[in-house]
């Protein structure tokens, strides 16, 4: 008592040399409808660093109701996002890439902590994530030229097929690749106009919330991407069986749960996709095509 080190005025002035500054720790919440709510269940769970096992933070533990709310938010945003011009979606996605690149250091730190990568590998991983996002940013105004076109039918009709977004897509993000894998499963879904409900990696969820902060500040409309952190085993079945979810990407589901999830999805004839990609390798269009419907239109040709 009375030591200058602990008096209020000294504390305000800052630590003396040799004392560590106390940080202001971030609270990680869910990202739903463009906002950051806590779980309605009030639960959270500890997230540990990959190497040391130290506590990194508490992540919100999303409940079934949170998942339901996320689907509502995704559906509410779906019409407008699908109705935006492809050019506009491309611009928005490119801006996200700008924002991620701007925060490269922060993301590298998160990935190091989450995955135990070395600093150099983490930086390369973040750079790859940015480039991955840029790759997808260039697709919206090109997909129709690759996946659509006029069809030459045997009659006086103009017939053309256009790819259209399927709607709300549930995405189980990869368990291990907490940023590059995450980006690789989200970007293709929204580039074409779908909205997403993402279940982040259960053990490595923090980069997903930081990514959400980027999305919230990059002109991405609220509800286009919704991110839930929590227990995959609890959340995946809700989404797989949800009748207002149009498609589901099972990539991040533990292998022994996939069969049951596919059965659940079958109940509403969902489009199901699942693939364990090498995230470092060049992507292909299939993750976009998987969530596109094809609409074919006929019109007579005559005077």
């Amino acid at each position, binding site marked *: 008592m009375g030591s200058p080190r602990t008096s209020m005025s000294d504390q305000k002035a800052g630590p003396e040399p040799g004392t560590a500054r106390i940080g202001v720790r971030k609270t990680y919440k869910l990202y739903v409808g463009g906002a950051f709510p806590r779980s309605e269940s009030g639960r959270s769970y500890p997230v540990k660093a990959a190497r040391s096992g130290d506590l990194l933070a508490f992540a919100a533990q999303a409940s079934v109701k949170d998942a339901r709310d996320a689907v509502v938010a995704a559906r509410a945003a779906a019409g407008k996002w699908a109705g935006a011009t*492809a*050019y506009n979606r*491309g*611009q928005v996605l*490119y801006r996200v890439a700008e924002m991620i690149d701007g925060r490269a250091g922060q993301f590298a730190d998160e990935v190091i902590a989450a995955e135990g990568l070395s600093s150099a590998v983490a930086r390369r991983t973040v750079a790859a994530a940015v*480039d991955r996002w*840029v*790759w997808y*940013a*260039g*697709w919206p*105004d*090109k997909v129709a*030229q*690759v996946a659509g076109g006029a069809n030459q039918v045997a009659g006086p009709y*103009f017939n053309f097929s256009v790819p259209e977004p399927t709607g709300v897509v549930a995405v189980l993000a990869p368990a291990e690749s907490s940023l590059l894998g995450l980006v690789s499963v989200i970007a293709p879904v929204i580039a074409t106009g779908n909205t997403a409900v993402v279940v982040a990696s259960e053990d490595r969820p923090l980069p997903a919330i930081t990514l959400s902060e980027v999305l919230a500040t990059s002109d991405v409309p609220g509800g286009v991407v919704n991110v839930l952190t929590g227990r995959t085993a609890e959340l995946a079945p809700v989404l797989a069986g949800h009748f207002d979810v149009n498609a589901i990407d099972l990539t991040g589901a533990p292998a022994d749960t996939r069969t049951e999830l596919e059965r659940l999805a079958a109940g509403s004839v969902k489009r199901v996709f699942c693939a364990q990609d090498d995230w470092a390798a060049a992507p292909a*269009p299939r993750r976009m095509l998987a969530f596109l419907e094809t609409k074919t239109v006929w*019109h*007579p*040709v*005559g*005077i």
Partner: protein
Amino acid sequence: MTDKAARAEGAAAAGQGAGAGAPARVATLTSGLDWQYAPAPQARDIVPIAAEYGLFVAGEFTPATGGRTFATINPATEEPIAQVAQAGAADVDRAVAAARDAYEHVWGPMPGAERAKYLYRIARILQERSREFAVLESIDNGKPIRETRDVDVPLAAAHFFYYAGWADKLDYAGFGPAPRALGVAGQVIPWNFPLLMAAWKLAPALAAGNTCVLKPAETTPLTALLLAQVCQQAGLPPGVVNILTGAGETGAAVVAHPGVNKVAFTGSTEVGIAINRAIAGTGKKLTLELGGKAANVVFDDAPIDQAVEGIVNGIFFNQGHVCCAGSRLLVQESVADHVVDRLRRRLQTLRLGDPLDKNTDIGAINSRPQLEKITRLAAAGEAEGAHRWSPPCELPKRGFWFAPTVFTGVSQSHRIAQEEIFGPVLSVLTFRTPQEAVTKANNTPYGLSAGIWTEKGSRILWMAQRMRAGVVWANTYNLFDPASPFGGYRESGFGREGGRHGLAAYLDV
């Protein structure tokens, strides 16, 4: 208005005031306000304009060998804007060598994803400096600031955005796996959309992995030079883009240079044919985007007010200096008088004047020679017996100006129905049946574009199928998008710019 209000107005007019001090102004409103838009000039000082510009070669601005320069003037005032370098044969050699070097050692080997990021940067800087580009283009070209601001510059940026996205996706462009670039592209562009044409040429070429030597038009070099500065600001490796200013000889030297693998030209059919001849047998790949004499076809069931807007836009946008201009109105005879009447009334509200005034619709003609050509052809129209009409229009004393002009009673055989005027002159012809419309529309050596106005979907498709034109606009006109392929049939050229198709010109496919 009731008697009470009319009395109040009368009282106000008599200066007595009605109610709580109603001003005398109110009284004039019985007949409607004579509302004149005040001048709304765009400030020109936003864009710094140098007194003199060099050539842009190997990433640097340098004078032409021998130091020759020429002036570029403001066609709205005839005042000189700046001196610009005149590139000679030695400069063409330098530029091609720089482009070759960059292609072999830097740009060619560079992964598409990295090339993409340079192009995205250029697109972004164009967006950020958009107001400077809009003002500079308006001053150098004569077109209204409203058009440069709302059309030219945004489309140019969009073009870079669009092709940036192809640079790392060439495997999926429909040309087979890993299509290769051609090498060095020699590109010559016209004066009607200087910045936009530069974007149309550079963006796909660079995305596909080529390097470029670009020659802007003699009368409109400045936005290309500002674009060169943007390339520097984007960190584009030296030699990837080279800009050589000059006149016809410079362009001829560029396309003829043995170090150029690919030639792209937009301009007159006459020059396009000359280029085609010049490179015959050299193995150089060529795309041409030439002139047009488009038919804008209006049927009796057209959405009439929008059709009139489409006619106006089709021929008076950019002062008619548009290769795809709807310079022939083909209107169904049963509604011809009605349509022409509405067109004449609509033309009353066109505003011609200072291009930097934000309310100007019609700007200056780009050069004296062009003005003379338009004047000659319009005179020919009168001489051949067509009826000439323009809305009342005060032309500024200085500068190159031509009032919007409509010729009715035009026949297919009149010069003004056959020759490209490239000015704000519309020739009106009639037709009776859809087949006749098609026949007349196609009765031209050109084939760049066409317009169709009707509410009937099947007829739109039927006409579109039969019109021999590379671009068909239905119930709209003069719409451009980087995703939409553009180019002509027959003497309007070959090759397409824009869309996936636009890559073909710059790949070895």
